[in-house]
């Protein structure tokens, strides 16, 4: 055995036995350092014959490879051992509470507005808005409700001016007129928003939310109205079938007018929509009155269509089992937390309405 081989085996042995990174470091210099085994051996090559040179060089190289491999393994092992040692000492009580975080919430009314917008978006409606303060003209007159008409008694109006010409809108229907006046038919819009009536008791609040719907085109009939509402109610309550009843009613701005009831039953103290033999009134609708079209500069001989108005708060109550309308506006921290929605829970067509 050559001196080189002897030294190599000696170092191999040393490396195998090394206990810590300090020892390994020393051995590393002995092997790979400037004056380490490998370098010294290479230096000797110059004095050899070409044939020997080749042979010895290959010997050194294979020794270098062997030692490198051994060295790397040793280093990896030592690092692993050291980490193992450390890990053994590191022990935290993971049952201690996480750091504080706060989850914000979206109000059920906002969530339901987004759900509704998402549903109507699918069938081509876009969202319009109108001012909360309205004129008598847009709120009543243009909607075919003349002054001194008993139909006005259905609305307890808040007035902003003594002469009763400015008021807080009592419904979202003025958006119909405003939308039609600023554009050209066809119109296919929904308009959610705040509405106001001077009424406050168990089931009424002076402010509430309505959703107006309007679809005006050539040849839009009550059949389309029925289909549209049927689609909406089914999608909104996320049920496959729905029991729906159209009852004739009266609104000055639609003719014929209807109120829509949906069938429900109470099961285990919870309301089940779409089944059962009880009826619940949920919205008013009808064919837009020709006078309203005229007031909106739309020719009733060429265009016709339907409109509807839904109480948003009531829909939210029904869908999410909220009993008291007044609680919507009382800002009780517990209520907001409990009934509110995660802001990441955005209702969409492709993902679905609710989580």
């Amino acid at each position, binding site marked *: 055995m050559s001196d080189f081989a002897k030294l190599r085996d000696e170092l191999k042995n040393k490396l195998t036995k090394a206990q810590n990174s300090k020892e390994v470091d020393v051995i590393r210099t002995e092997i790979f350092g400037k004056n380490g085994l490998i370098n010294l051996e290479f230096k000797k090559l110059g004095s050899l014959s070409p044939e020997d040179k080749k042979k010895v060089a290959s010997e050194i190289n294979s020794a270098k490879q062997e030692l490198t491999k051994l060295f790397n393994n040793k280093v990896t092992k030592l690092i692993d051992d050291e980490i193992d040692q450390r890990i053994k000492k590191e022990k935290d009580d993971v049952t201690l509470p996480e750091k504080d975080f*706060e*989850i*914000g*919430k*979206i*109000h059920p*009314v*906002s969530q339901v507005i987004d759900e509704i917008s998402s549903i*109507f*978006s699918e*069938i*081509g409606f*876009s*969202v319009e808005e109108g*001012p*909360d*303060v309205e004129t008598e003209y*847009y709120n009543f007159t243009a909607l075919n409700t003349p002054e*001194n008409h*008993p*139909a006005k*008694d259905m609305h307890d109006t808040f*007035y*902003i001016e003594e002469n009763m010409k*400015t008021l*807080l809108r009592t419904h979202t229907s003025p958006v119909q007129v405003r939308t039609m006046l600023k554009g050209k038919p066809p119109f*296919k819009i929904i308009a959610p928003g*705040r509405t*106001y009536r*001077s009424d406050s008791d168990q089931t009424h609040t*002076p*402010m509430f939310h309505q959703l107006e719907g309007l679809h005006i085109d050539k*040849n839009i009939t*009550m*059949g*389309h109205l*029925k*289909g549209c509402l049927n*689609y909406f109610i089914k999608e909104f309550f996320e049920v496959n079938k729905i029991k729906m*009843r*159209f*009852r*004739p*009613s*009266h609104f000055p701005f639609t*003719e*014929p*007018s209807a109120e829509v009831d949906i069938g429900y039953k109470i099961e285990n103290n919870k309301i089940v929509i779409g089944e059962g033999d009880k009826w619940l009134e949920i919205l008013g609708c009808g*064919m837009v009155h*020709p006078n309203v079209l005229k007031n909106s500069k739309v020719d009733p001989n060429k265009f*016709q269509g339907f409109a509807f108005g839904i109480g948003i708060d009531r829909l939210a109550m029904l869908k999410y089992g909220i009993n008291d309308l007044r609680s919507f*506006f009382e*800002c*009780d*921290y517990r209520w*907001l937390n409990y009934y*509110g929605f995660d*802001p*990441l829970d*955005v209702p969409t067509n492709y993902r679905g309405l609710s989580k």
Partner: protein
Amino acid sequence: MKFTKDWLKDHLKTNKTEAQIIEKLNNIGLEVEKVESEKNELGDFIIAKIIKAEKHPNADRLKLCHVDIGQKKLVKVVCGGPNAKDNLLTIYAPPGSIIPKNNMKLEVSKIRGEISYGMLCSESELNLSNESEGIIELDQNYKTKIGKRYFKSNSDNVIELSITPNRPDCLGIRGIARDLSASGFGKLIDNKISKIKKTGKQTLKVTIEKGKTQACTIFGSCIIKNIKNQESPDWLKKRILSLGLRPISAVVDVTNYIMYDLNRPLHAYDLDKINQGIIVRNSKKGEKFKALDNKEYNLDGGMCVISDHQEVLGLGGIIGGIKSGTELNTKNILLESAYFDPEITRKTAKKLELNSDAKFRFERGIDPNSIKMGLEKASEMIIKICGGEISKLDIQSTKKIEIKKILFDPIIVSKTIGIKIKNNEIIKILRDLGFKITKKSKSLSVEIPSWRPDIHDQIDLVEEVIRIKGFDKIQSVEPEKKRLKPTLDFFQRHFHLAQRSVASKGYLEAITWSFTDEKINNNFRENIPEVKIINPISSDLNVLRSSLYPNLIFFLKKNIDRGFENQSIFEIGPVFTGKKPGQQITVICGIKKEHFLDIYDIKKDVVKTLVELGIGKNETTIVIKTPNYYHPGRSGSIVTKTDQKLLAYFGEINPKIINKTFGFEIFLENLVNYKSQNKKDKPTITFSDYQKSDRDFAFVVQKDLKAQDLIEIISKVDSSLIKKVKIFDVYQGGNIPSDKKSIALKVTIQSDFKTLNEKDLNEISQKIISNVEEKASAKLRS
């Protein structure tokens, strides 16, 4: 509007059940609101037998009766009736029942030391007669019925309809019958023509003063003499009670009866109290009138009054007066049946804040052709009950009754509802509802019945047809899934995003009233004009809000009272800047109350929200100017650099308003306007892979130097090399002079083209130092 099936059958021959009728009424637009069993308190009265009647131990005139009421145990009842005796069959009222005579609710009570469970009744107590001397004595036929109800419970239910304002005709039972008949629910029975003899002329002169604003256009009347006014017979009382009215006297009950039967309001005057004659005129300002509701009204000018030669007797179509009212001893009456204009009647009643059944009907429109029928039917009923002689009818009128006709193209029906209905069916439905129809080539000439003031256009006839045909016949058309326009516009998308962006920072969304308390609002109003509500729901909700803070702070405090010390809530919604439509802006306002909170927490929330809404941090600058409701030293505004548009306020709320609470307001319209005017394409980005170096500096600067300005100075030294300036420490005190502070910051330097060497870095560092020292009169801290 209330009615019973029994009464309905006076007008409608039908074999339908009550349940069928209720369903049909709903389907034809006469919404059934409630079905109540008629006067169900009468069901409490039970046939009973006195087993033993003993003398009351402590009272001579009272007896202690042991009564069999059909239950296992006898009940003890103290009774004052002298005729109470063993084995008497009588009527027992249990505790909880309501005695019809005085509407008193019976309770278990101690009478002279003896407990009495209920009461034995006299006829007068049950309103059966005036007999009050003793308790009722039933004959032996009732022996087998002990424990059963005395009043038959198979009496009709009272059906209550919610009649829409367009259907005055259905405020009378005949109108309801007509609708039911038209929808195939039986035959409408013809009104009987009165066969009662009328003797003599109506001798009281009636004059209608003509004028444009005269509400009364027809005044019909007749005189009935020598009546004996009295209580109504039971059948009539029962019907009056079923309407929820109180029986008064035959004359008054009959007028009420006709009002509900035919929707024909009438008024009866005591003829002997009318001075000379009737003048229908407009009131003079200041005239006084005492109405049957016992209130005195001060009349304006121009209200329609019925007067005699002395004073006002009644408000036309609204209410009669005390002076000429009938009483039980009234001998001679004048019966009025008139037509009053809906609009003028409504105006008058509204001004006087007066409501009555008559007004409710006249303001909706009464059939002007029902005047005669009303007088005849009522007077016939009155003389049947009270006797007397009727005069001929006197009808004064100033205007001919118009006959309205519509040219109706039946094609509109299918065009509107989407299904075809045959012309013959259309004609039949309309005829059954009382429309008179003549065919005119393809169209129909339709004459509107005088009881339908709501029918004006062809579209109204469409509604009549489909209402009777049934809305369930309309075929649903599936909606098309096609979108021509984006659902949300640019602004709405930002609204939606802002709402969820703020919520994602731990804020709970609240929705509060658009109105608030004037006093609180004034703290936040600044220069915005106040918008008052004329008729607020309560005095502390009397103005439209000028800021979202007043309500949020109000509810924040309430939640603190509920025990929540740490809160973050926000609202997004309208704030009002004036009282015209459209004078409102959209604000997102958040408030936060927590221990160890400082201005930089709230600033982080607002800046991060702006960044999420697409406003880069480098596009805005902070201005130290905020409204007075913020703490002046701990608040700022965020404005755009290019055009100084106000995007947001943030800061501590002025401690005078609320202690240790932080908040922000983002002005959404400003933000969206800025964004749409500064639309930027995202440039392609190149990332520099050359070595990045950090250099730390500490400068001693004037105490009032704004950090923002220091950063600005440094950034501008070489914007191609200085990638980031980050302040990591601000220090005052120690060896720093009291009018100075030390700001320590880290500057990140990187070239896009090469690795900077030590020399380059020193050069730029020197430039930074000299720039800062010169422009901010600062000194590098050594």
